């Protein structure tokens, strides 16, 4: 188990957004997190990545208790994430968007007197990642000039550049056109598999869920409704009714 969550709870005022959730993610496993709107998916990811502090429960990562660790600590431990709403360095070029995480990862970010361009290896690696995500053509445009979908792809590429052990992706393909959804997912997932990274992916599109995940976690009103292989979960009657809307 790279990640295990025990009896996690999160209360917002009178609302219990996460209500006693326990589950685990194995190494190299890709888990999809599905559920209706407002079920608590983003909240769960925020708890794991440290952007929210739980009201009860524990989170372990690689055997360590990280329940109250700072987000920064968790990044250093190897938890990477993307956001439901993209967060880019809007004014910087696409290349620099990917290069900056690399500088941080290689501990070069404090270098103050040498030009960024003089780090040829890092630049080369960044270009490799851009090629992987089909963004190479745009490498010199400022990120703000990308379309919504391109931004989404770049966002994932940036999380990827950190080479985390566990990648948390919040609707990585929402806003991406249908076909590109698959190619983006292909890229991400093959990269994840190649690097042996584990992932927790929030996704609404069941085609993608069933294509790319090893395991599915269904969450409803803050509790786990079902858990298992995609095929099995999608046969679950309750899931079909409340989440998928299929009678």
């Amino acid at each position: 188990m790279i990640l295990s969550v025990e009896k996690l709870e999160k209360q917002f005022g009178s609302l219990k957004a996460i209500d006693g959730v326990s589950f685990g993610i194995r190494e190299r496993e890709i888990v999809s997190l599905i559920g209706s709107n407002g079920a608590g998916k983003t909240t769960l990811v925020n708890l794991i990545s440290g952007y929210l502090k739980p009201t009860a429960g524990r989170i372990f990562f690689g055997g360590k208790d990280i329940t109250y660790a700072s987000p920064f600590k968790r990044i250093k431990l190897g938890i990477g994430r993307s956001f439901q709403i993209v967060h880019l360095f809007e004014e910087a070029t696409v290349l620099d968007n990917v290069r900056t995480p690399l500088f941080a990862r290689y501990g070069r970010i404090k270098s103050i007197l040498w030009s960024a361009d003089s780090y040829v290896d890092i630049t080369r690696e960044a270009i490799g990642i851009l090629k992987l995500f089909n963004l190479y053509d745009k490498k010199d445009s400022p990120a703000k000039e990308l379309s919504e979908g391109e931004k989404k792809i770049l966002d994932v590429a940036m999380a990827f550049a950190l080479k985390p052990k566990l990648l948390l992706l919040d609707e990585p393909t929402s806003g991406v056109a249908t076909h590109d959804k698959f190619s983006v997912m292909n890229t991400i997932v093959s990269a994840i598999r190649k690097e042996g990274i584990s992932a927790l992916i929030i996704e609404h599109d069941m085609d993608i869920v069933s294509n790319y995940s090893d395991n599915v976690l269904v969450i409803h009103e803050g509790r786990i409704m079902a858990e298992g292989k995609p095929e099995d979960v999608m046969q679950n009657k309750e899931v079909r009714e409340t989440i998928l809307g299929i009678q």
Partner: protein
Amino acid sequence: MTLLDIENLDFFMGSTQILRSVSFSVNEGEAVCLLGRNGSGRTSIIKNIIGLYLPRSGKIVFRGNEITRMPPRNRVLMGIAYSPEDSRLFSELTVEENIKIAAWVRGEKNDTFNFESVFEIFPEIKKLMKRKGLYLSGGERKMVSIARALALSPSLLLLDESFEGLAPVVINRFKEALKQIKDMGVTILLAESNIKVASLVSDRAYIVERGEVIFEGQPQEILQNEKLLRIIGGG
């Protein structure tokens, strides 16, 4: 009868041309879909129609009146409503206030807005009424944003990627609702990237590619045409 007519729209951002001579039209009571890849220019078209962007040249005609350079407010008063792809709720106002504001623009008195029709489409909203926009989940925001556009009781509804981020069960419900809305005589223009969703709710579709309209036809035609499918990326 054409409700919305767009002629030779050229739109620039800074010095880059985003839209190239875009022309298309939407008939009254129709549901029309703009299909295309990411970055093809659909959002730009929609923002030109609501007036957040101004074109360099070309014409936008609504109900026979040219509205190309009209301020957004006038367009809204003429019956155009818009739900953006990133929802854009007023984060410090409650859901109720978010929706009511739209009703006020339309001229409703303070407390007469009837939320029933909204609850019918999105029952989820009922329990969110007193929550601030800031604290909603992604999908909840989407719903409120659509509800807010509906509260303007528009005759033309502009929906930008409104199905994104909604759970399948909600999508199903929303598709049904769109049909009802259409039956009530509201014209719908949606920007979509998912041809399957588009084919279910729209009568006609345009394909936008690199800022140009390159195809017009039935969604079914596109579904059957390999080449078109590749262009819009609808695998």
